[in-house]
């Protein structure tokens, strides 16, 4: 079995203002995600779900507010799966496992029904199979907090079920997941609608950044 999460899987956002292309897009976002919880992130296209997830994952700094999570507890599942086309399914998974200091990939292979595909170069996988492999990566990171950006794109109904089972097993072990999605995953989860946090660019700028230097040049 997979290692139980070694860290505390608590993630909190406090009065967060996030920017896309230098323009504030969400402001005053606050929520707490506790271990064992799943939070579904809702919002129409372009409302800033991806930007919020990238900010939480630490890929971009927030304009204001702060993200509270223990270091090295978060793994981010983006639109792109981060697969190398010329590596086989097994090589892809083993790479991500060893980057995260893990060695066991059987759980991930079985959890996402990839057993028959391990030898196949990922260039020859279908879109849904690639997605399954990308999601299986989450299991080999051993990290307790999953931030997922529309994880079910191009998955068929049984695969969505596999994914929901994987999330359930993950939270049962004390993990947590924040999932941006438009479909019903059948999970017992709270919803978090980001619609009300839409930023007003006139009021959202932080005085510390108001000289415009950073955003103009970086």
């Amino acid at each position: 079995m997979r290692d139980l999460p070694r860290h505390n899987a608590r993630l909190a956002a406090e009065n967060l203002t996030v920017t896309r292309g230098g323009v504030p897009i969400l402001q005053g976002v606050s929520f707490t995600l506790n271990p064992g919880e799943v939070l579904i992130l809702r919002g129409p296209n372009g409302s800033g779900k991806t930007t919020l997830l990238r900010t939480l994952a630490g890929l971009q700094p927030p304009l204001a507010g702060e993200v509270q999570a223990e270091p090295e507890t978060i793994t981010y599942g983006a639109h792109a799966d981060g697969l190398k086309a010329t590596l086989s399914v097994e090589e892809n998974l083993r790479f991500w496992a060893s980057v995260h200091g893990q060695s066991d990939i059987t759980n991930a292979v079985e959890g996402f029904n990839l057993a028959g595909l391990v030898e196949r170069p990922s260039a020859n996988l279908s879109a849904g199979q690639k997605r399954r492999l990308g999601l299986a990566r989450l299991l080999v990171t051993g990290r307790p907090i999953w931030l997922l950006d529309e994880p079910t794109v191009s998955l068929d109904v049984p695969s969505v079920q596999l994914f929901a089972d994987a999330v359930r097993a993950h939270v049962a072990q004390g993990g947590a997941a924040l999932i941006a999605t438009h479909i019903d995953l059948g999970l017992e989860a709270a919803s978090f609608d980001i619609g009300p946090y839409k930023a007003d660019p006139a009021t959202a700028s932080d005085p510390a950044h108001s000289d415009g230097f950073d955003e103009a040049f970086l």
Partner: protein
Amino acid sequence: MIALLIRDLRLAMRAGGGFGLGLAFFLIVSTLVPFGVGPEGDILSRIAPGILWVGALLACLLSLDRIFQLDFEDGSLDLLATSPIPLEGIVAIKALAHWLVTGLPLTLAAPFFGALMQLESPGFSWIFVTLLLGTPALSMIGAFGAALTVGLKRGGLLMSLLVLPLYIPTLIFGAEAATRGMAGFSATTPLLMMAGITAGSIALLPFAASAALRVNLR
């Protein structure tokens, strides 16, 4: 970190990985120059160190944009940036992988290609030694240029313009050391200068490159 190095080397060896691209370009340059310059052996042997150095430099430049661009496009770079490996380490490992795939084969092949240009026998070891000392700097400076331009589509032109001026000191001292050594003069000063550039870029540029990557990942 070892896993990342192994993955990058494996990717380079697989189909479309770009291993041999630099080497083939280097061979083309060393084959065509004698045709262009004409059959006078003394002219050829006099310009051989400089031509070999320029050829190696351009061959190096040819594969630079692959260092981060492919990982950026398939999403791996986002995932690597959130992985336990520090971004500085990722840059250093990727530069090392680039050197092992490009710089090292060029260094090993240069004495043989030198024979095509009537390089005289003391020149073989000098061209080998100077390239061995200088090509790590080419890979490291190149990784910095690649990190600066990673988000840009078709960023290759801009990257070449950014990187070429930074390559010039290495080229001057490398070709100078090879020419002086071949002629029987003392080459210690240019060798030391070039070793200094290499050591300095290996020490400093991973930090600069990872800062550039952080900005480009936003």
